[in-house]
């Protein structure tokens, strides 16, 4: 099993959600996060003073997947989140040692 983690533009959340549904994904976890990459931050101005804000808002999407579908899901997220300009974000896969559905006690692939 794998955990697909994507950090994307906030404006792309709806597109990614639709793409995941089309890819047959039944659940996702979304977190509002802040960070920076090559896009760097932005500048705000208060009473003439410029403030450099390094950490800008992004959305982190996490999806659990079995080994076969993980790459396909990552590709679907990438396709939906792409705008071709700097700041589109990143996707990575991590190994997951075990999964359990709390209500039923089902484990691993059955719990995804």
């Amino acid at each position, binding site marked *: 099993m794998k955990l697909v983690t994507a950090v994307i*533009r906030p*404006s792309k959340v*709806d597109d990614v959600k639709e793409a995941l549904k089309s890819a047959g994904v039944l659940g996702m976890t979304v977190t509002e996060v*802040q960070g920076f990459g090559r896009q760097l*931050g*932005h*500048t*705000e*101005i*208060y009473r003439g*003073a*410029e*403030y*450099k*804000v*390094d*950490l800008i808002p992004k959305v982190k999407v996490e999806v659990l997947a079995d080994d076969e579908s993980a790459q396909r899901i990552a590709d679907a997220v990438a396709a939906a989140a792409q705008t071709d300009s700097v700041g589109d974000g990143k996707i990575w896969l991590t190994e997951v040692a075990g999964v359990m559905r709390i209500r039923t006690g089902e484990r691993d692939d059955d719990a995804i």
Partner: protein
Amino acid sequence: MDTGDAAWLLISSALVLFMTPGLALFYGGMDRSRNVLNMLMMNFWCLLIVPVVWVIVGYSLAQSGDGAWLGNLDAAFLDGFDISGEDGGFGLLVIAFLGMFAVITPALISGAVADRMKFSAWALFVPLWLVLVFSPVFKWVYGGWMGDRGVLDFAGGTAIHVNAGIAALAAVLVLGKRKGWPEEGHRPHSMPLVMLGAGILWFGWFGFNAGSALAANGQAVQAFMNTFLAAAAAGLAWAIVERVRDGHFTNLGTASGIVAGLVAITPAAGFVSGMAPIWIGLATGVICSYAVNLKAKAGYDDALDVVGVHLVGGLIGSLAVGLFANPDFFGGEFMAGLFYGGGMRLFGEQALANASTMVYSFVVTFVIMLALKATIGVRVSDDVEDTGLDLAEHAETAYSTGSASVTRN
């Protein structure tokens, strides 16, 4: 100058000024968090530009002289108005009081164009609209051809709410829909701001309506009571409709009902009495709670329901004057409504006045928007709409977190 009248009008003027920040919060709370500052700034822009334009030329075009269609320029630059005259400055006070109305009228339109209008386009739209639409219509109603025909508009149902409401429709037709509307929900980001804004509007509206008696007299008292009752009745009606239709008493329904009721009683406040404000309020709450759903069916993106609340509410109130106006009660020289022996004549005049206002305001607003679109453009880029107007247009953010990572250049 009667000091009692002056005291009440001074207070009323300040009350009406406070409505514009109240409106800003009412709209700002309904907006998404990335656009709330832009909404506040659109409203505060009216507080900056309108007073200046108003004393230079706006008031003069709206009130000076006997013209049926437009005022003259005799009162431009406040010419002839100061505290040394016979009226002791009361005329100057009236200009200030009416100036507060001039501020909030274009501000009402901001709710329709929310989330996607370039601020530079809004900055130009406001003074253009004030001079080309607000001032002429104001003259028609107060001292022009409508007034001569006996049209009644106590505090600005036709001149302000119908006028701004139909202008909002024209503006969004040129501007286009928000990205993702109507498929994506655009839910309010802060309901407490909406409720606070509605409360401030109600508070300020006592100055708007009761102040429009331009005196501390019985008519002001009646207008005050009518404002109190109509807002409550309309909020009640809207909330009950939602409870029956959708299952819950909602904050947004309550706030919207209160504002719709205030709009509807505005033209009627000094002409009706007794239980009339309750009937007007109840009718408005029910009708407007359905009118705000028209936009989805008709396909125009009036973001925060300026059409459904201000145009529809203003029309209901203005037509209700044709039913409930009671000159005997006020000892006044105006036509009676249908229920007080006046027949349908006043109702017909009210309908004509509102129809004329709608045609003129729609056409001229549409042309102003087209002209802005052809020159500087009226709409922000897709990127800006995605990331929010606060940062792109104003270089500010409403709710900052993570202050540890901020450095000052």
